[in-house]
């Protein structure tokens, strides 16, 4: 019986290959939105993800902390404007996450 249990535990791989920073649903949504564009401002992301100001802000801070997103200061006319985009690390982390998830679901039967 205990041997059988052990087998089950070895068969189910630990879920470590999924990047935990990206795996959280709200952050996954943000990353996916930023992945398909070049950059966007805070308001655009808020509209697209249906998140509140505080919620989006805190998730962006986590993503910025992980080095996945960067904040760029630009000028629109004479007014300063803040844009957000994925870093190279963020882009490759998302690609990697995508590949891993695909592998996981392809492996399910």
């Amino acid at each position: 019986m205990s041997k059988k249990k052990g087998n089950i535990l070895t068969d189910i791989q630990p879920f470590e290959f999924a990047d935990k920073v990206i795996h959280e649903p709200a952050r996954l949504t943000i990353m996916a939105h930023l992945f398909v564009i070049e950059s966007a401002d805070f308001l655009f992301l808020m509209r697209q993800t249906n998140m509140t100001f505080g919620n989006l802000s805190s998730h962006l801070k986590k993503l910025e902390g992980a080095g996945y997103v960067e904040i760029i200061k630009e000028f629109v006319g004479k007014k300063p404007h803040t844009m957000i985009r994925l870093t190279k690390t963020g882009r490759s982390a998302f690609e990697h996450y995508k590949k891993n998830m695909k592998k996981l679901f392809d492996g399910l039967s």
Partner: protein
Amino acid sequence: MDLANLEKKSWQTFFNDGFLDILLGVLLLNFGLAPVIEYEFAIHYLYPYIFMLFLAEAIFFVGKKYVTAPRIGRVKFSKRRKQKKHKVTFVLALSVALGFAIYVLFALGIVEDSAPFSWWVALFCINAIVVFSVMAYFLDFPRLYLYGMFFGFSILIAELLDEFIIGPYNALIGFGVFGVITLVIGLTCLLRFLQKCPPNGEVLHE
């Protein structure tokens, strides 16, 4: 999660404001109104035509800057999307060049109009439908297929009515009806957009 669809959805957000529909509606109306103004008030049709064209463009650009941007924010799309926009510009330029070439051929008398239904009417109809369809495809904006039909049928109806109506009112009917329909679609989209998206990210239900 379909990433291609996500990008498309983000892109299409910018058409939800209805300003492009309004611009196209005014353009269509313009084709119908300008000849009538010339006929009724003896003002060369180019003056009201150019005035309304500038007015429509001003509404479009001012609307995008002061109404749309503060409500949905700013975004820079991928290079692939920019390439698609360049393709649309190329098709539009080609269409304008074709129209101009036909105009020159008529003006110089190289080609003569064979009434009642001349080949160039068919050519303009097909040109409008093809150009708008190409734009709809590259811009991922399905309403442009409909507007292509509107432009095509406007030319056709105006030409068919020419025999039965005195003065330039055939153009007013042909272009005016579809112009008003396009304008109403645009204004409805704009009203829905204004209700749905308050400025600067204020959320209605909060």
